[in-house]
């Protein structure tokens, strides 16, 4: 458990995740209120990363359920391990024969087997999937349900049931209640509109692209090998690029990749040639790449302007930012 929003911020920082005041507050609330946290925002702003950092900050395991179209309960909750059951039957065949040796009629034999049925449908043969693992864990874990918008509406309804009661009923075994209630984080890229019911159940956090200051901070923390001047240029350039009408805007993860790539290539300063050579790190779509390539000089000019402005104000670390996510 976190003690306060400030504590959240600090411990996440130790896990090398920088969050705004708003994010810290909302995470703190989700933790305190025991409510799932629904995180939305453009791709690559660190939605998934947040839960990884949370697990690290809380010194616990991260259990991840990656959603996709067609994901069903068997893959998310539990499955019976038929093969193992079969194996046991094979190995114990002689014991079964012995046990049934003195039964006269078939009926009697059935009854005898029925008495032992519980043996086969016990937790021994239950293969727990992420959801079940998360609620049966002895230590409180962070449960990440990633890209929940990719699932089908029926699975969403099922998820709702698990997330509201934190218990699961397995017909053969009975109800398994949560030993510890996990800290649940759901992420969505808004590919599909989630149901109102699911939204109601969660606390909502919208992570937008960070401000220049914060993104620069992130680069400094995650890619310490990159020189300060270059880091500033990289971040400012990406901010400029985000203003273009691209199909896929570069996220923070792209910024980091790019900074890493440039540091590896020993680039000291961004020029047209450097950008053109390494553009693939931030622009992943062919059409986007064509258009960006054409406007590199314009983007570089914009970058310089932006940096001048920013330096004019003086680098104000972590200040005036509590207003939550803002564009650029």
């Amino acid at each position, binding site marked *: 458990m976190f003690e306060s*929003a400030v504590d959240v911020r600090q411990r996440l920082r130790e896990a090398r995740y920088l969050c705004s*005041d*708003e994010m810290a*507050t*909302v995470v*703190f*609330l*989700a933790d*305190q*209120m025991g*409510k799932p946290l*629904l995180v*939305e*925002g453009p791709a690559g702003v660190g939605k998934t990363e947040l839960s990884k950092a949370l697990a690290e900050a809380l010194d616990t395991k991260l259990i991840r359920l990656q959603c996709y*179209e*067609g994901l069903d309960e068997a893959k998310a909750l539990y499955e019976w391990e*038929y*093969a193992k*059951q*079969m194996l046991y039957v*094979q190995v114990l065949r002689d014991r079964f024969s012995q046990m049934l040796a003195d039964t006269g009629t078939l009926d009697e034999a059935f009854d005898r087997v029925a008495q032992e049925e519980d043996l086969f449908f016990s937790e021994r043969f239950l293969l727990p999937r992420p959801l079940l693992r998360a609620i049966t864990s002895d230590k409180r874990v962070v449960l990440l349900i990633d890209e929940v918008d990719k699932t*089908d*509406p*029926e699975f969403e309804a099922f998820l709702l049931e698990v997330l509201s009661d934190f218990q699961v009923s397995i017909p053969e075994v009975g109800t398994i209640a949560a030993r510890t209630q996990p800290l649940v984080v759901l992420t969505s890229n*808004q590919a*599909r*509109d989630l149901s*109102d019911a699911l*939204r*109601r159940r*969660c*606390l*909502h*956090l*919208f992570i937008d692209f960070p401000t220049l200051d914060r993104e620069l901070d992130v680069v400094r923390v995650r890619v310490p090998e990159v020189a300060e001047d270059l880091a500033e240029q990289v971040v400012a350039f990406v901010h400029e690029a985000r203003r273009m*009408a691209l*199909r896929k805007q570069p996220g923070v993860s792209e910024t980091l990749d790019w900074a890493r790539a440039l540091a590896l290539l020993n680039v000291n300063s961004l020029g047209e040639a450097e950008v053109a050579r390494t553009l693939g790190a931030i622009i992943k779509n062919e*059409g986007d790449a064509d258009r960006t390539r054409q406007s590199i000089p314009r983007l570089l000019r914009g970058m310089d302007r932006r940096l001048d402005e920013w330096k004019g104000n003086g680098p104000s670390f972590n200040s005036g930012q*509590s*207003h*939550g996510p803002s564009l650029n």
Partner: protein
Amino acid sequence: MDQVLTEFVQVLRRAGLRVSSSETLDGLLAAQIAGIDDREQMRAALRAAMVKRSRDIPTFDQIFDHFFGLQGEMPLGQPMPGQGQPGEGDFPLDQSELEQAIQRAQQALDDLGEQISDLTEALLRGDMPEVLSKLAQAMQDARASQMENFLQRGRMTQEILRRLDWSRVVAEIQALIQVLREMSEDELADALQGRARDVHELFPRWVAEEVSSGFERHNPEWQPPVGPALAQKDFSEYTAAEVEAMSRQVDRLAQKLRDELSRRKRTGDRKRLDVSRTLRRSMRTAGVPMELLFREPRPSRLRLALICDVSSSVRNASRFMLQFVHSLQQQRGRVRSFVFIEDLTEVTNFFERNPLDAAVEMALTDADIPYWAHSDFGRSFRMFLNNHSDAINSRTTVIVLGDGRSNFHAPQLDALATIRQRARRLLWLNPESQWGWGHGDSIIDLYARECDFLTECQNLEQLTAVMEYLTETAR
């Protein structure tokens, strides 16, 4: 706190945000945990608990700022672009000073036997709930919600201001300042003057905003100005604002239809056992088939060739058609799009390289055809056949969108007949009302013989019906 929060939620709901009562309780709890001393923490807490859609965040922030206004900040209206926060800067007034000013002036007026109206007082004090309830009443009286055309909002705003007796409010504020000056309370008068400037400036705009958003609220999803009326409105009568709003509506409908399709695919009872996979899997369990495996239903692929008339008379219909089909087909299926007026050209690659909105716009204005020409259907069908016959095969559904008004050019029926023969089926959507068919230069009746299906497609409702039909019959 409960009381304040309940009122706050009322205001949010009035602005079109859907906040359930369980969310209100969450909000209360969240605010208590986060602490109400720090305004931004409280904002974050309330927002996380009560606002679950990112598009609602700006509205929430505005209302939050108004409602839990900073001291001296005018709790009215949103700050206009390019304009600083009202109440900041030129006249740093604090609430107590303002209160004092109002009280003094009011006393003085009382002595003179004059009364100021409730609205004036509420506006000056920044009493948000009171102002809102007055406004809501006036809007109801003026039947603002029955406004049918988004463009009437200017007139409607005037009407509401009249009903609120706005000119009286203005006069009263002047009188208050006057009285203060006469008492040589210049400091208080200045304070009031500052507030008055804000009120003058912002209140009418704010009413206009309310009128607009009141109009928006009438659409089932409380989104931009699209009402049920608009769904039945003729495409050709759309204004620019409506086109914009409609685009969003079309996107949502396509999304809904996509969800519906994926659900139907899953719950379809036509599950077929996959014998070989089941047997193979049974090897794990010593040949006992413990687990039944089913064939994945083959995704229905809709192969479409769209042939859209983009002359000005039917341009809007083509716009929504292109948008609808392409947003529907984001993942599966293959669509080739063609536009024509006198000449025909393919615009499929616009959609591959650009965001949907831009692509549609380009198809309507930027394709390689003369846009000033008059529609020639026959010539266009012929060009399609000559240059793009690879776009159709026996699995393709061809959709022609046009009014069949060919400006007395040769119909070239055989071209259309050949297209139909090579395709799986040929659908014709006519954005013109059935009443006009066959009159003047309309040769839709001739073309009708060569179509598998001809229907009027004049508004969103009809377009949606066609799309549903298409997806249902996909194979």
